[in-house]
């Protein structure tokens, strides 16, 4: 449809957007997951395995990858989510590394040689899948579940006293995040026709979190904007090849200092919806 360059860029954008939401779900509740790349790897390998070995339709294979990843997130999430703050970040970071290390040594999926994938999906399929997922997330953002995520970040004790199952809500967000990362992994595997464990390194997880933090977690739009911005920004700096990443890093530091709440805030969204005043006018 487009040139290879544009096609490739759209796919990277789509994958980044899905990944951003996978990190955003727990982060909205105040939990930093630094292991999203591990879940992405699970999705990529499991989907590739099922489409390669059993000839399953790619969509079904990706769905299986997502379920397996969600199951792993559930099993591991129960003990890991007992920690919080920096300990949770480190635990999820280690988890991501362990998952990748498993695939690096798993002979049935090629171990360190990588794993060729025979099924292929094109850019439009990936783009449409991403749009559907984002729309589903927008619907999710209109539920009590999402409201509780924000509330838990604010004050878990008060949430508990109102009867909210704080731990279970957090676990659900973590599992959903793991499932989303797996979808991104499955899509990428079938686009690149190749999976290698090295491509799911710690940097992927860190960048994913960066998208979310810079986009903002106050609204459902934040991760999308963050991911889009940071997919295109390095491209803009492409002309200054050698300095590209230095400029990029300086930009991120500057941004965090000047706007720690992220690009898109809840107040901004309210102003867009209601430009002539902040609240409803008094009825009496």
């Amino acid at each position, binding site marked *: 449809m487009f040139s290879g360059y544009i096609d490739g860029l759209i796919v990277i954008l789509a994958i980044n957007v899905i990944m951003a939401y996978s990190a955003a779900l727990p982060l909205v509740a105040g939990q930093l997951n630094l292991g999203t790349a591990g879940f992405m790897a699970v999705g990529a390998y499991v989907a590739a395995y099922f489409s390669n070995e059993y000839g399953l339709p790619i969509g079904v294979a990706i769905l299986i990858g997502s379920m397996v990843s969600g199951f792993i997130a559930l099993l591991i999430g129960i003990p890991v989510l007992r920690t919080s703050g920096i300990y949770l970040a480190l635990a999820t970071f280690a988890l991501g590394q362990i998952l990748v290390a498993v695939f690096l040594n798993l002979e049935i999926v090629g171990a360190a040689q990588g794993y060729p994938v025979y099924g292929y999906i094109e850019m439009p399929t990936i783009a449409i899948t991403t749009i559907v997922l984002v729309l589903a997330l927008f619907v999710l953002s209109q539920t009590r579940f999402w409201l509780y995520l924000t509330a838990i970040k604010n004050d878990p004790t008060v949430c508990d006293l*109102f*009867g909210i199952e704080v731990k*279970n809500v957090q676990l659900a967000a973590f599992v959903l995040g793991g499932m989303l990362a797996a979808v991104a992994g499955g899509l990428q595997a079938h686009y690149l026709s190749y999976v290698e464990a090295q491509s799911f390194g710690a940097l992927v997880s860190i960048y994913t979190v960066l998208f979310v933090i810079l986009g903002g977690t106050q609204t459902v739009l934040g991760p999308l904007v963050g991911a889009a911005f940071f997919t295109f920004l390095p491209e803009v700096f492409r002309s200054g090849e050698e300095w590209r990443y230095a400029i990029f890093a300086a930009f991120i530091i500057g941004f965090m200092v000047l706007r720690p709440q992220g690009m898109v805030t809840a107040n901004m969204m309210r102003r867009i919806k209601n430009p002539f005043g902040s609240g409803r006018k008094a009825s*009496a």
Partner: protein
Amino acid sequence: MTYALEIRDLVKNFGSLEVTRDVSFGVNKGERMALIGPNGAGKTTIFNLISGVYPVTSGQILVEGTDITDVPSKKRIGYGVSRNFQNVRLMRHLTVVENLILGQHITAGGVANMMQPFGMFKRHKWWKQAYEALEEARLTEYADETVDALPYGLRKQVDLVRALLADPKILLLDEPAAGLNPTETDELMRELKMVAENGVTLLVVEHDMHFVRNLCERVVVLNFGEKVAEGTMEEVEKDPKVQAAYLGVETEEDDAA
């Protein structure tokens, strides 16, 4: 007759520190009871024990005769126990109306209804209920303000509305009048009397004695974690142990001990 809320021989130790010692009292349904005493008397600790924020060291907590001592904090709202906090713990980044939606959790069908995308339907019953509650409290104009942007007095009002949306049988209020101006205090008093008339049992920790005198039918006085008196305000005021607790005067009993 069974009390709406009863505590029996409540003891809480933090390590070797005894914060409350064998405190017992009962509150009748729809009664307005105050828990008073000097700073550090253990009033807020008792609130934390009743709401389950802290586990008890020993003793019992009963709601309408049912022992809830070992019920986890998140389940106590199901028994009708709701509380506020002295330092107003609203969700800062959420709007006023979103905070109220949170308060509805237990009445909104709990977990089963969590996935309803009610946010897209402005006529959903949850919005309606929240806006009605705001209108009753004459706070409609602040519905979409972020809590962060509101002055303290308004935040306290929103906090109360939120606590009431959980449809409590027993409402624990920790210094509801602190930081309010006289008009706001009178307004609060009227509101709380109405709440109690509707059958909600009130237990209030408050330092403003004028407020306590006008609102509460009975008071329990705590000092150093022990109950020193119980009765109407007039009764306890005359009690020498209460005077000692507040003024630091030594009583004969103290001398004897």
